[in-house]
């Protein structure tokens, strides 16, 4: 059983949704980043999603872009990111960890996927690889021992959802409205997308864009999501020197919404 499936099974038994925290590796520097990876888990995150900073992140909004820029300006290299992941894995052997990054980094460097798997990453989402282009990457990921994650959006046609179901594992990264990361104010989550994904037999749906408040978490879980990933809001909290533990604790509590038991 993979770390993801063990986590989803354990949470389902407790009638909870998964709470995933997203952090940019190396932001603002390697040491702080290592501390934050541990801190979000200590505060209640069930899974951790990490960005490997890319110079041209077209799927990311201003907050995540700025985080990548800070990391690159601090001189963070891809190898440093794998070292951070390995450090996290040694400390948290059971917590699922997924990488979100861009195609050019994955392709530029031979052995990216193998190195990621060896460092202890469980999944890889390549933001600019849609289902249409995912097959080749999926084969390489299978060989390397890392699970592919694909994005499903409200405007994704059924035929593509079926392809996503075939090509992806771990979870399905769901986007309910158009846009880029961190730019959705209100929590609107598309229960129809969740039903369509279930019909297609896709991995557990996790909502990724537009989670910044407890109400968003509750709405997503009520819509049938297996979990949520909170990115820009966590990064904002960190860079504004907010109380990260309290923020994550509060959002995690919202995955225990009583409606989940219905």
């Amino acid at each position, binding site marked *: 059983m993979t770390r993801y499936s063990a986590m989803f099974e354990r949470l389902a038994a407790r009638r909870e949704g998964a709470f995933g925290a997203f952090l940019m590796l190396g932001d603002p520097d390697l040491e702080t980043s290592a501390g934050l990876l541990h801190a979000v888990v200590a505060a209640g995150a069930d899974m951790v999603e990490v960005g490997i900073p890319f110079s041209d*992140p077209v799927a990311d909004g201003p907050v995540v872009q700025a985080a990548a820029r800070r990391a690159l300006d601090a001189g963070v290299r891809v190898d440093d990111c794998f070292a951070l992941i390995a450090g996290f894995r040694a400390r948290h052997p059971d917590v699922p960890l997924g990488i979100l990054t861009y195609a*050019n980094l994955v*392709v*530029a*460097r031979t052995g990216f996927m193998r190195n990621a798997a060896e460092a202890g990453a469980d999944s890889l989402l390549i933001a600019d690889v849609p289902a*249409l282009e995912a097959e080749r990457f999926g084969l390489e990921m299978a060989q390397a021992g890392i699970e592919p994650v694909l994005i*499903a959006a409200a405007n994704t046609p059924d035929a593509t959802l079926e392809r996503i179901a075939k090509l992806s594992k771990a979870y399905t990264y769901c986007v309910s409205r*158009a846009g880029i990361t961190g730019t959705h104010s209100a929590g609107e989550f598309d229960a129809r997308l969740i039903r369509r994904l279930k019909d297609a037999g896709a991995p557990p749906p996790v909502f990724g864009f537009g989670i910044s408040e407890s109400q968003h978490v509750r709405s997503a879980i009520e819509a049938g999501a297996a979990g949520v990933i909170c990115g820009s809001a966590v990064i904002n909290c960190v860079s504004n020197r907010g109380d990260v533990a309290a923020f994550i604790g509060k959002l995690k509590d919202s995955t225990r919404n009583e409606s989940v038991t219905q």
Partner: protein
Amino acid sequence: MRLSGRFGRYGGCYVPEILVPALEQLEAAFLDAQVDPAFVTELDGLLANYAGRPTPLTRCRNLPSNIYLKREDLLHGGAHKTNQVLGQGLLAQRMGKRRLIAETGAGQHGVATAMVGALLGFETVVYMGAEDVERQKLNVFRMELMGARVVPVESGGRTLKDAINEALRDWSASFETTHYLLGTAAGPHPFPTMVREFQRVIGREARSQIIEQLGRLPDAVVACVGGGSNAIGLFADFLDDAVRLIGVEAAGKGLDGEEHGATLLRGTAGTLHGAETYVLQDADGQIADTWSVSAGLDYPAVGPQHAHLKDSGRAFYVGATDAEALAAFKALAEGEGILCAFESAHALAHALKLAEAEPESAILVGLSGRGDKDVAHAQGLLA
């Protein structure tokens, strides 16, 4: 998708999933329009009566007379860009979009998009690196005169590639009402194919004009390559002929250093802005900064068909430095009374070398744009 969108191993459609339906809609609209006589008639009418096609083919009188210039500098708007913004503008209308967005470097494509926005009645937003907004105030004003809103992009290096990133971000949230009018034959499928088809008119005209003037095909066809739209438009109708195709990249301050824009000569395979192609990058895959005296060639990727033409050996790619381009710019002004764009001067710089080495060869050069935009810059550099 109905077409593969591949040129050998290059091309493809590397965008966030959310944009795939918009690209599928665009491909369908483009393919349907291609075989719709009403669309073809309307576009041909605009090219002739608004833009001023056909453009002349000028044989040099005082520069080597085996050089023939395809005069896209004489097109309305001052560059080949007009050909394809008219095509995409009509497609956007056909798809029922109300808003156009575009990226621009020095402002030429932004001006062309503002032009078609005014002509066809779109709300137009142009993303331009904040650095470029500062350097190209006149073009910003031109766009605003034609009703476009120019948004300075503060992220990254604040230049062209950052403007493309920002336009893609806008489109991810706005594709239902908005067409992204990409400025070159690069980016995700169907842009490289669609832009080539809208620019193909350059080579089609030039081919019949040179046959008419010379009685035969040229020996070499030379064009500058940034994103590569004017070059692919000029090359397209010569691909099946026994004619050498030569693309000229920006060698900037020299190919041995890092200050150039020679993606095909110094780059490696990668994925940027939606396509697998040659990319200037470091060992990790982070995109490099580029340099050229001409903003239009200052781009770290290149259209995927050029990547394939290079690997297959069908086209050759060479570099011209800033200094060589500037010398060619000056020579054309003095010899022929033509002020060309710095971009086009790169093609001419190589053609001048070729004309000397091969006096018997007929050389067709794509003069992709006029030099008005570069005159102030030239004054500073040549004084």
